Each structure stands twice: as structure tokens, then as C-alpha cells.
């Protein structure tokens, strides 16, 4: 780096978070949505786990789709509908996470609520493998996936009771689109290897 002054371009922007408009003055253009949500708006959920898109703890919903807020520049979130885990839209999933004991230390609990809600919008009745795949972006070091599968089942049940609508518009390009909801190999049963 040169000895010249560090360039520090800033911009004022307005974010729409959980249905409220927040004007945020003097945001560094390199700041992520996560940094602005946490450090400028004092919203501690999403969490800052790795800041490089590995751990999934910073999930928010942007225009209804789960996104890693540490990888999304704040300036790119202007005029988008940003929902943090505190939004009532995730209440059902949060309650399910708590009930299933799916996040022992609580650090990933907000991200789990977003991921579960996002999954159920695409696929209201996911099987265990679909749940595992949908949650694979959240790296938790203190739970096991059986509890996450249980949490999704609880949330699915509660959402069905509450009559939450499914967003079909992006169900098609998802892994869990129309039937069958999983990729399948041809039947090899006549040449299968030795079973134990």
C-alpha cells in the first residue's frame, strides 16, 4: 500500500429493514450489509461469525430469499426488502428451533430461523436429505443435524396450521422443485455390490 492517504469514500443510504426505513449517513462504500445492520443499526441478529461467507451465521432474507449479509455490500441492499431474524415472519421458525433444542449455544439460532423459513417457502414438506442440503451453509459446532431436521418438521407443522402461503415463483429452480423432490440414480439393483 502506498504512503498516500487511505481513500475513504462514504455515501448516505436508506435501508428498508424489517419494514422500517432507516436512513444511515456516511456509510463506507465497502461496508457489508452485515456491518451496517450490526454496527450502525444495532441489530445483533444476524451474527458476525466469519465475515467471509463460510459460516452462514449472518443470514438475512433479501426480497424474501436467504442471503449471507456479510457478502452483500450495503449499497447493494438499497431499495431491497431486508428482513432480519427479528422480523415476525421468522417467529414460527424461531420457536421451532428453540423447541427442538437445535442451537445449544444460540449463536446460529437466528440464521437457522431464516434458513428454515426459506426452505419451507420452497418446499413445505422437505425430507431429511432436503433439510440437510438446505442447511448445509450453516456451520454449527455444537448441534447435530437430527435436531435441525426436527426443528424443520416442527416449523412445517406450525406453518401449515397457521396457513402460511408458499412462494412458488422460485420453487422451480430450486433443488427441491416439483416431484420427485430429489435427484435419483437409475436402478442398479441387479448389479449392486455386496451388502454387509
Amino acid at each position: 500500500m502506498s504512503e498516500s492517504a487511505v481513500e475513504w469514500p462514504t455515501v448516505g443510504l436508506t435501508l428498508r429493514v424489517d419494514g422500517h426505513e432507516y436512513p444511515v449517513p456516511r456509510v463506507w462504500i465497502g461496508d457489508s450489509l452485515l456491518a451496517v445492520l450490526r454496527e450502525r443499526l444495532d441489530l445483533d441478529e444476524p451474527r458476525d461469525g466469519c465475515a467471509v461467507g463460510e459460516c452462514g451465521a449472518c443470514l438475512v432474507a433479501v426480497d424474501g430469499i436467504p442471503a449471507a449479509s456479510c457478502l452483500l455490500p450495503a449499497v447493494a441492499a438499497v431499495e431491497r426488502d431486508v428482513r432480519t431474524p427479528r422480523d415476525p415472519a421468522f417467529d414460527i421458525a424461531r420457536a421451532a428451533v428453540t423447541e427442538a433444542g437445535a442451537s445449544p449455544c444460540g449463536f446460529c439460532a437466528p440464521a437457522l430461523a431464516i434458513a428454515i423459513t426459506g426452505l419451507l417457502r420452497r418446499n413445505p414438506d422437505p425430507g431429511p436429505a432436503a433439510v440437510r442440503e438446505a442447511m448445509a451453509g450453516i456451520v454449527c459446532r455444537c448441534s447435530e443435524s437430527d435436531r435441525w431436521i426436527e426443528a424443520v418438521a416442527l416449523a412445517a407443522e406450525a406453518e401449515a396450521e397457521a396457513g402460511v402461503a408458499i412462494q412458488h415463483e422460485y420453487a422451480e429452480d430450486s433443488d427441491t422443485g416439483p416431484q420427485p423432490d430429489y435427484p435419483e440414480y437409475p436402478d442398479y439393483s441387479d448389479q449392486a455390490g455386496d451388502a454387509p
Partner: protein
Amino acid sequence: MTDPTFPADLRADGMLWMGATRSPHASAAIRGLDIRAARATPGVHAVLSAADLPGYNFHGPRSIDQPVLAADVARYIGEPVALVAAEHPALARAAAERVRVVWDPLRPLLDPEQASTAPPIHPDGNVLHTTTLVFGTEPGALLDPDTAGVAGLKVVEGEYAFDAVPSRPGAPAAVIAVPNGERGIEIYVATLSPRGDREVVAQCLGLPVEKVHVIPTRVGGADTHREDVGLQVQAALLALATGRPVKAVVPRDVPAHSGRPAARLRYKHVVAEDGSLVAVDADILLDGGAYASTTVDVLDEACRLAIGPYRAPNVRITGRVVRTNNPPAGRVRGGGGALTCAAYEAQMDAAGTAVGLGGLEVRLRNLLRPGDLVPDAGDPLGKPAAAPVPIPDCLHGVLDTPMPSFPPGPDIREYPGTVGRTGELTRIRRGVGVAIGMADLSNPAQQGEYATAVVLVSQTPAGPAATVACSAVETGSGLHDLIRATVERTLGIPPERVAVRAPEDPGSLPSSAAVTHPAWVHGSAVEAAAKQARAKLFRPLAEHLGVDGGLLKVADGHLVSHDDVFRQPLAEAYRRCLPPGRVVRGDGEFRMLTMPTLTGTSDAANVAVGAVRAVVDVDTELGLANVVQIAIAQDAGRVVVRDRAEQRVASGAVAGSGLVLSEGADLPYGWGEPSPMDSPEVVVAALLETAAEAKDEIGPDGLPVAAPPLGGMKPVGDLAVMATPAAVLAAIRDAVGDPRAGSPLRLPLRPDRAWWVLG
């Protein structure tokens, strides 16, 4: 601040961010430092180096050898050299990059095998510690393959190498230091040991200890051990220099604190034709990294647990931990046994093959029973194992667990490799492996531990409620749940009306040093406080009955006297004794003496055992392994919150399968921890409760002490971390055969190291 908070979520007005200049070299002398460009960066308020530290530059949990900031030499990649405080984290990073360090790179010592002959990287040499445990006939006499063959004995040799695993907790390591005028400096951090940290920070800052206040935030975020006090000193130093609060967060690509050491184990097992173990010779080498941290404890524990829960009449175990220019290592999830279990269990399988009986049969013929000798540092001849050693019950538990169906699928996400690089049915083999793990509870290096707690009981519209003030840190292990359950059991107040808060005066009170047994030490302090509160609370009733308040207990929703003559519904007792506005306070403390004091008089070694069965699908072409199911049964001592205990065990099993298959040091940001796609179904087949309730015993100093067998404390979760890798490895061998002899078995067993593909 009273509610538990993640330290990274704390903020203060005018807060600055810490950035650190770190060594790009594994070993290099520092010839000069120019901070002018960094200091001139806008928004930067301070740039400091080791020369600015007013106190002592070194800290460390055992040997005081780790500098807060490297002064004249850097000994590992990522070691901090200079600190920056700036108004934005990106500015702090940019300024830290502008600190110009004149490096003089030296040849790094990276191979622990060469440490004892290489030039010393510390003044006191590279060999940090050696351990030798011997009993019976010197195994060397039995190990000569020629003589052994004549006597009808088989010698089974094996070498095993584990990679180091850096510590990357789910929540980043974070500290916020706040200068507070006359009061001194306040440090908010998810430490497990506020009292010890306070002394170290004061010494490094050159402040009287009263001027330093270490306040535990009491939720950690998925890591049991957070012991790098250096980060606290760094943040505090910047806060004092700038007069403003400073937040320090360790970025993901540098080790947050000491990780799992690399280990190399060489074994020779001598086994008779009938499968009985004649002798075991084990040699263990740990790479302690650049600084001592706690690797000496890890080595000692690994040596004591080097042969596992088996009877062996002749044993020689030698261990060394050396310094290198790798990042500092320290505590290991699962304890020292997590470094040895996969190796000794692989040896037992190999012994089974050598005598033609199979691994399980050879294990059964040598199972440790109460009274059999186990290696013990306190006694060169070994110590007899104390009852119970319920290995058969554990084995029944896991073997009775129903097997998952084969083949996997039809969903291809159930195949090895899941999505993207998926195995195919024609080349998938399934294997089943069983392993037994053992943890010992008599660590002779155990330091004394101490905890205090306050329980306040008052009436609310919803009913009686309790507030617990203690410094117990929730790291995801369920400690706060355990505290609530303890209050419920003692006072009959449901968990949802029990709040766990920080001590009222955090500056003076947090005096817990409960690092290794937090559930036991904090739980006991809370129990003592709750009992005192109960005695005070129901004193009016007790006086009416003419008994001491301490003799009234809570059982089945009733308040009952010790002799069961008096019995009253709890709601009524509370209504009579706890009018609105009355607040009853109970104080409790618990002190665990140092382990030699605790077990020195005991003739027996307390152990905990567990068994794991792993079911693994292996792809024979891609080298992929998918752990389908882990079944585990263990001796859990005393279970207070069953759900959390099961969770802890299951999480240990997931961590264990990651340790054997994916976690390693070469993943830059990487987790290696199994994602939900890779993590197995975990069946907790049994948690055996083998311990009676802890006794209330009063020591000579008037404080309650723990009486063996350690109040029912057994390490829940450690056995899963320890035995799961061994069981997964056994299952892989079952599926695809043994690796070729001669080369060490290197773990984690990632696809590029899979012997069945390479062979």
C-alpha cells in the same frame, strides 16, 4: 450489563476497533518497526508495539512464555506484532497493513520430529515436557519379534499421525475493553476464568489488580475453551492509550486461540495366541507449537490414556511435547484420550487380525475391570481402576441399536459425497466398526477451582421466581440449563422463572476459576446457594414445626421434612412464606481442591468409559466416506438435564467424525467440521447413571469439598469425541480392508489420503 451476551455484540459510545499487524513468517527476527504511515492513516488513534506495554510482556496458562506482542522475534505465522485502534474495522485493518516491519526471516522449525536436534526457538529449548509411565516387565524384553515368535506371541506394530486442527469457534473470539476513570479498566469477554485473567492482565498492563475488572459475558458461542488472555491485554492496552472503548475481534483466518496439537503415535502391542494382551509399548509425540499453552496437560493425559480400557500386565508409555514454529496448540476437545483412542483401537483390531479372533473378541478378552491396573502419573506402578467400569453395558447399548438400511437412497444426497461429487451404488461398500473409549478423572495437574453464586427468590404475579448471579459461561454445553434445573430441583421454581445473571458487582465478585469442570463447580455453588435460600425462605414454617430450615426439602411439588412427617403443597408453602416484596437471598460457594489433594489419598483411579458403533459407507473410487450412523452409550455419572446431556454427546459424535474425516490445518478459513450434509444420524443408546448424589462434605476450611468419586462428575461428550474417530476408522477398515503396512496412517482421512484408493 446483566443479561448473557455474545462479546462481539457489545458496543460502547465512541468505540474504536482493534487491528493487528501479524507475522507473515513462521520464524523471523524483528529488526525494525516503522509505525508512521499507520499512525498517519485517517481515523487511527493509536499504533502500539511491545515497547508500549507498561508491564510484563509474557503470559501463559502453565509456562509464562507467550508474548502479548512479539518484541524481537516472531515464532509462528499470524503472531501479533503491532496493534492499531481506529474508528472503523476496515481502517484498523488498512492501518495495520501499513505498519512496516523489517523482517529477518529465519529457518522455521516445522517438523516436530526434528525439534530435539534443531536449534532452540526458546531459551529453555524445544522439548517442553517428557513423560514416562512403566509397569510390569519392561516391554522391550517382550518386543523382539524373534523371541516373541518362539514364545507364541505376536507383535503388532502401528504408526498413526494426526494433523493439527486450529481452533475456530463458531462465534469469533472477541473482547471489549472500556476505560472507566478511577475505577480502571473493564474488560468484557466470554472467559471461563475471570479471576485468573484479571491477574494476568493487571501484570501485563503494570496496573494494580484492583484497577482491572474482567467481566464474563457468559455466553461463548460453541467453544469450550477460551483461554488466550493475550487478546484481553491487547484490547485493554489500546483502550488505556486512547481513553476510549476498544473492541477486538480475531479475524477468521488467524487462530483464535490454541488449537489441537499435531500428534504422532507409535505402538507395539504384544498379544498371545488366545488373544490376551501381554505388553504394550507406546511412544507419543505432540507438536506443541510455538508456545507452551496447555499441551503439557494434554500430553500427560494422552499418556495415561494411551492403552485404553484394557488390561495389560506390562506397559511402557513414553511421551514428548516439543516446541515448533507452528501455531500454538493446547487443549483438545475430548481431552488427551481423543489423541490416542483411534490409535489404540486400531491396534486392538490389528491384534484381532493377527491372532485370527477379530477385533471385538480381542477387546472382550482384555476388557478393563474394577481393580485392574491403569497407568497413573501419581503412581509409577499404576493404580487399580475404581468401580464402576460398565463397558459391557455400553457395548450392549450400541450393539442393540437397530442398523440403518442398506443401500442408501434412492435420494442421491444419502450417498457418500452427497451432492456434486456423488458416489455410485455399484462401488459403495458399507462397514461397521465398534470402539471403546476411556477418560480418567484424576488428572494430577488439576488446579484448584472455586466458584461463588447468589440466588435471590421473590414473588411475581406468575409465582415465585429466582435470579441466579454467577459467572458461569454458557459455551453451548447447557450450563445455564443445568443451573436452572438445579434451582428447580432445590427450590421447585420452574426453569422459565429462573434468570441467570452476572454478579451484581462484577468488578469485585467474579471469582470463578472453573475451567475444566464448569458444570460441576458452578452447579455445586448454585446448589449450595439455593439450599441456603430454601432454608431461609421456609424458616417460618420450620420454626412452626420446631425443626431447622435446612431439613425441609422439595419433592414432587411438595415441601417435605427430612422424616417425611410434614408434607405441604409447594404453592401453599410459598404463599405462606414468601409475601410479595420479600426477597430471600442465598449465598453459595464451592471449592474443588487440587487433584493431588483430592485423589492423593485414594488408592483407585476413577475412569469413565463409553462405546461407539459407527456405520460408514465408503466409495471405493472417489475415496469418499459417509458416516451414516453413530450409536453411542457411555457412563455419564449423574445426569441433571438429560436432553442437554444427549445433545452434548451427539455433538461430540459429529465433531469426532469430522476429526477423523475432514478437519485439518490446511483449510485457510475452513471449517472441516461436518456440515449437515456430512454429519451422521446420532443415536444416544444409553447414558448410564452410575453415581449417587454428591455428598455434602465440609472441609477443614469450612467450605464444602468434593468427595470422591468426584460428585458424580463424568465428562459427557468427551467420550463421543474420543471414540467416534476410532469407530469410524474401524468401520472403514471393515468396508475396504486394512491400509498397506509400513506407512503411517495419517488422519484426517480425506479422499486424497484414502488408502483404498491409493493402494
